[in-house]
């Protein structure tokens, strides 16, 4: 498709869709209104399962299948991106390059932030059913923490601390754990992804039943997945070179 044809298609489509969207939006219920029927059902359901963070209860209990799909997308994308970014036949990963010089202050900041970020990340994962956050957010923070080593300028150290294939195994095991937890529900109650573990007391660390465990599984999966993803990009940008 040529550039001008693309523009014609775009303006026709945008005109049509834009008009339609505006016409539709004029009939939307007004912003900030009181009517939220699904919420009125979901909130008592979450409280009934001792899950103060209602969003987590929806993600890991009421609509857990969505999250299973979401984590599968993550798994597929990580495997896909890692496969797409593999060194091709005429390329090689060269290990001897260490990137640039880094200011001492930056280095120090990187090393100082590392433990703090790790703790914050773990906290976000394990209190996912109690406070805002959860496996996904905490997992991303944890994975970022590992990569603070890169900010600190130590790509080689990062590579040593980050054996890619083991993270991939960890990701597979964590994603598998989600499925297994779902199947446990199927075995015990006949419903896939049922919340079968004791719900505990509202507000306790070990409460909300399966939500806690699914959260942890997702945390592990996201951590290892994002590490694999970032390492594939880092390797492409820093060390994969064509062999001439």
């Amino acid at each position, binding site marked *: 498709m040529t550039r001008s044809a693309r523009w014609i298609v775009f303006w026709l489509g945008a005109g049509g869709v834009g008009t339609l969207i505006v016409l539709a939006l004029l009939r939307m219920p007004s912003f900030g209104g009181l009517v939220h029927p699904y919420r009125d059902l979901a909130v008592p359901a979450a409280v009934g399962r001792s899950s103060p963070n209602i969003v987590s209860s929806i993600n890991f209990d009421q609509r857990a299948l969505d999250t299973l799909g979401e984590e599968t997308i993550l798994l597929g994308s990580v495997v896909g991106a890692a496969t797409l970014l593999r060194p091709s036949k005429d390329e090689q990963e060269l290990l001897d390059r260490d990137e640039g010089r880094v200011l001492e202050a930056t280095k120090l900041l990187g090393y100082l932030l590392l433990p703090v970020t790790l703790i914050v990340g773990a906290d*976000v994962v394990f209190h996912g059913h109690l406070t805002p956050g959860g496996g996904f957010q905490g997992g991303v923070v944890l994975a970022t923490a590992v990569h603070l080593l890169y900010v600190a300028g130590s790509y080689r150290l990062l590579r040593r601390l980050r054996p890619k294939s083991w993270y991939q195994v960890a990701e597979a095991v964590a994603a598998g754990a989600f499925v297994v937890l779902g199947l446990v529900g199927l075995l015990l109650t006949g419903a896939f992804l049922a919340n079968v573990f004791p719900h505990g007391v509202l507000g306790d660390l070990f409460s909300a039943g399966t939500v806690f465990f699914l959260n942890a599984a997702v945390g592990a999966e996201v951590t290892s997945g994002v590490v694999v993803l970032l390492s594939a*990009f880092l390797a492409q940008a820093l060390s994969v070179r064509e062999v001439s």
Partner: protein
Amino acid sequence: MTPLLVVAFLLVAAGATVVVLTREPGRQAVTLSVYGVLLTLLFVLLQAPDVALSQVAVGSAVVPLMVLLAVRKVRGGKR
């Protein structure tokens, strides 16, 4: 609608426009990161702390980082 919300919505709309209109991909990673922060602020105002946490981690850190690394590699490929 509170003035704060109005401002936040308008900032997000403006931020997105700037990101799209930034042609230079290296600079776009920066505007994208700022846009991520604007979205985070909006989400906080919309009483969505979970979403705001995700957005700040993904939208203003991980994705811009991947964009930067991709830009770097793409430029390197041209040499």
